């Protein structure tokens, strides 16, 4: 086993350490006198024993095996991999933010509460829905909040609805959330234009339907032109209309979900409002809603209170007194550190800046789409729905598969060798061999052109010798990995040799596979 892939546990050597305990300044009572015997750990947890330099080197070396946004182009569709201004890390780290205890009394947390209040206000304005809760921890948590609100809303009106509609283009979290919220997920079809199939919607939008969850622009990167009609159908059925805000980056300052008729919106702050994605979080998924949904919002709400005696003193407080609330979704007040970055972003850009963001995001996507439509590319990777796209677009790898014998997965893996991150692949599901491409507004024209060049080169190479792509990547720290084997005989933690004898057979039947995760 190469030293390079050793885990930190395998680097452990008895007696080494990075930590030194602070002075033990209280009487040295033995632990046995303070804890009942049955409560005491018998053998120490087998944490690694390493020195600080080796600790640093281990994780520094690991880090260098990651592709990352600060290295290059990362057009992962639906993920909005925009640049995260470095200022945001600085302001989030200010001790007044980073070292503030969540139970500090409001009197001594006025800065934090005002910041949250301002973020609530800004998000409400952007969504066109005035009531905001910052609490949900990520997009999917926001979705769940949205459906719990929907449930509370209907129940408050004495209605028991059982089904929630999601388009077949919906992100996986949408149907998963539906089930978790205790509803039956019902799929709505997509029309030839890439929008919601209105007939199908009409048919399914009965009075057992609690909600339609929609992304607009949808996961094909298309703005649903029938949004007014959709809203009408849904509202006529007495259901709520839920906006999956993952694609908000396309329409800020241009069209607002509230104005489109949506009742509830979640924001993926880590997409639209810049958060370094951290290799899979943290994020935050605040929700905004209309008046009729507002009474059910989670507690606590951040509120502004003005001096009683008509004074102009303003103070910010946490309001727990909301009788119809769905309660708490998590501990404390949400991912405050994420709100700080969001605040910094909105404050840097202002209203017109946010509109610029969306305009340039859409411009970049359409430009890249045009670059990928030319001969030498377009015939292999046809666009799934040939319309002006919004901030992203979806190609189909059908042509490449049929004519070159290379699948979308092969193309994606080969891109790794060119130092660019592949798009989201195999999603949305209804597009065969899908490539979902979202360049974002922070990429330069040169980057887009370079990417188009890479795609063309890979396709040309595949026409010569498809095997190169099929066995790609060739220049990464490891080659194509055996995902099937990993799932079949899962090894999900390290164990000392003795406990975990190597399985020499495992490497043998390695059949590389890949998924269109997102």
């Amino acid at each position, binding site marked *: *086993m190469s030293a390079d*892939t050793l885990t930190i546990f395998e680097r452990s050597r008895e007696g080494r350490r990075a930590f030194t305990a*602070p002075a033990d300044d*209280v009487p040295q*009572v033995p*632990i046995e006198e303070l804890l*009942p015997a049955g409560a005491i750990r018998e053998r*120490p947890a087998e944490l690694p024993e390493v020195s600080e330099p080796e600790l640093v080197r281990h*994780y520094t070396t690991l*880090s260098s095996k*990651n592709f*990352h946004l*600060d*290295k290059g182009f990362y057009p992962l569709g639906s993920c909005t991999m925009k640049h995260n201004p470095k200022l945001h*890390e600085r*302001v989030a780290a200010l001790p007044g*933010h980073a*070292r*503030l205890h*969540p*139970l500090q009394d409001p009197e001594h947390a006025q*800065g934090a509460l005002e910041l949250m209040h301002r973020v609530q206000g800004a998000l409400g304005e952007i969504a066109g829905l005035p009531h905001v809760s910052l609490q949900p*921890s*990520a*997009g*999917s948590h926001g979705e769940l909040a949205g*459906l719990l609100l929907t*449930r509370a809303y209907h129940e408050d009106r004495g209605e028991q609805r059982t089904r929630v509609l999601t388009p077949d283009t919906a992100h*996986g*979290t949408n*149907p998963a959330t539906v*089930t*978790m919220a*205790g509803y039956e997920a019902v799929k709505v079809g997509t029309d030839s234009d890439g929008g919601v199939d209105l007939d199908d919607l009409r048919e399914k939008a009965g009075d057992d339907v609690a909600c339609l969850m929609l992304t607009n622009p949808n996961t094909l990167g*298309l703005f649903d032109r029938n949004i*007014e009609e959709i809203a009408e159908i849904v509202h006529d059925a007495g259901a709520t209309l839920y906006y999956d805000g993952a694609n908000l980056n396309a329409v800020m300052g241009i*069209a607002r979900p509230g104005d489109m008729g949506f009742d509830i919106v979640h924001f993926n702050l880590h997409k639209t409002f810049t958060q*370094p994605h951290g*290799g*899979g*979080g943290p994020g935050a998924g605040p929700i905004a809603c209309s008046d009729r949904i507002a009474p059910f919002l989670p507690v606590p709400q951040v509120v502004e209170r003005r001096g009683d005696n008509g004074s102009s003193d303003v103070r910010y407080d946490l309001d727990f007194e909301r009788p119809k609330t769905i*309660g708490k*979704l*998590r*501990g404390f007040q949400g991912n405050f550190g994420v709100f700080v970055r969001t605040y910094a972003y909105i*404050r840097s*850009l202002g*209203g017109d800046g946010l509109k610029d963001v969306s305009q340039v995001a859409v*411009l970049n996507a359409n430009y890249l789409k045009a670059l990928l439509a030319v001969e030498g590319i377009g015939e292999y990777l046809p666009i799934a729905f040939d*319309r*002006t796209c919004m901030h992203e677009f979806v190609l189909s790898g059908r042509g490449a598969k049929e004519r070159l014998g290379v699948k979308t997965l092969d193309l994606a893996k080969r891109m790794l060798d060119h130092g660019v991150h*592949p798009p989201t692949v195999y999603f949305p599901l209804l597009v065969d061999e899908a490539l979902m491409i979202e360049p974002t507004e922070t990429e330069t024209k040169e980057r887009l052109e370079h990417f188009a060049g890479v795609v063309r080169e890979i396709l040309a190479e595949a026409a010569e010798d498809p095997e190169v792509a099929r066995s790609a990547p060739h220049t990464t720290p490891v*080659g194509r*990995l*055996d995902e099937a084997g990993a799932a079949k005989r899962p090894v*999900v*933690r390290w164990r000392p040799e003795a406990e975990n004898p190597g399985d020499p057979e495992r490497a043998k039947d*390695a059949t590389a596979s890949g*998924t269109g*995760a997102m």
Partner: protein
Amino acid sequence: MLAAIGAESLDDLFADVPERMRLGRELDLPDGLSEQEVYEDLAALAARNRHADEEVTFVGAGMYDHYVPAVVDTLLSRSEFLTPYTPYQPEVSQGGLQVMFEFQTAISELTGLPVSNASVYEGPSACAAAAYLAKLETRRTRLVASRGLHPHSRAALATHAAGYGMEVVEVPLTGEGATDVEALAAAVDDDTAAVFVQQPNFLGTVEELGELAETGKRSGALLVCAADPLPLGILKPPGEHGADLCVGEGQTLGNRLDFGGPSFGFFAADERFLRRMPGRIAGETRDLDGRRGFVLTLQTREQHIRREKATHNICTAQALNALAGVVYLSWLGKRGLVELGELMLRRTHYAREALGFERINPGPVVREFAVRVPDIDAFVARARAEGINPGYRLGRDYPEYEDGLLVAITERRTKAQIDALAGLAAEVREGVAA
């Protein structure tokens, strides 16, 4: 660029947006600012918070003022960790994936349970996730929760349970601030999917976990132990006590206070729940040449593959915070974790003794304890005037402890600071006695 697209203007690109839905005005937000000005604006806001270096804080109640070593900042600020997405392309994500694998190993060691995922959002919602697993596993509808479970966890359970179609039943605490085993026995029935206890519990009490587990599991319910991972360095791991699942809040492992988030939640389980776990799990595998590598595994549990049949809807989790956790644990190391645990334990008992207030939970405590304070308003005000935040007031969450104060101890709270608080306590006690 417009020419290449075949558009005349930026507006053309938005032709699909129906006229009536366009925002015919600018967003009503303050004008944009330069970096320097945004920095100053935020610095001014931050200055209006009293943070944990500006007072001596004994407030805990779920998040604690621990020292975060510099290595954590150094490593977390590396763009390579900070700026990638979830590792969907494992060949260029071996760093992040191996970190997840190591994290899982560390959590498994701490909890005494063989499998762990790579993080969930945070503590209370981790309890809700455990409830969902129990529901999928048992198809039962009742959740039984000790009143010693963090109030936020109980609240989050209730909120989520409304969606899961489950009911939450509470088990009271004894007069000594521990979960009432008899009441637990009475509460658990054939329709109970899971029993929730916390170690140490919200009041700092070291619960008799073995007994609770035995009682709780009698009718086939899963025993879910919420835990602060740091004291698990000296406490017998929940898994060894028979817990099926162990979940909790990871802030204490190298994460900032951040006014409550982001931190991470952890989720560990017995082997038999592996294919029902929520969230990402990294697994070890090989590449085509037989080289060791790591991938996201068992993805058929997840929303992007299984959609409405997924074991959970979680997508973005808390990878960076989990990295802080494993770096912190590696920094502490096998011995350091024990030393830190023992230091906290001793200081906690010392502090309880030194304060001399009536004890709500007189039995063994680690890192936190609850006392009744005569004229608590005055005491808190007095302490704050001295730059000490003396603890969390229990009244809001526990009306039965209206005069209760929950005092948290970390390695940052020195004997001298404890003695200072004890001095104020003595004044109050004497005042009352007088």
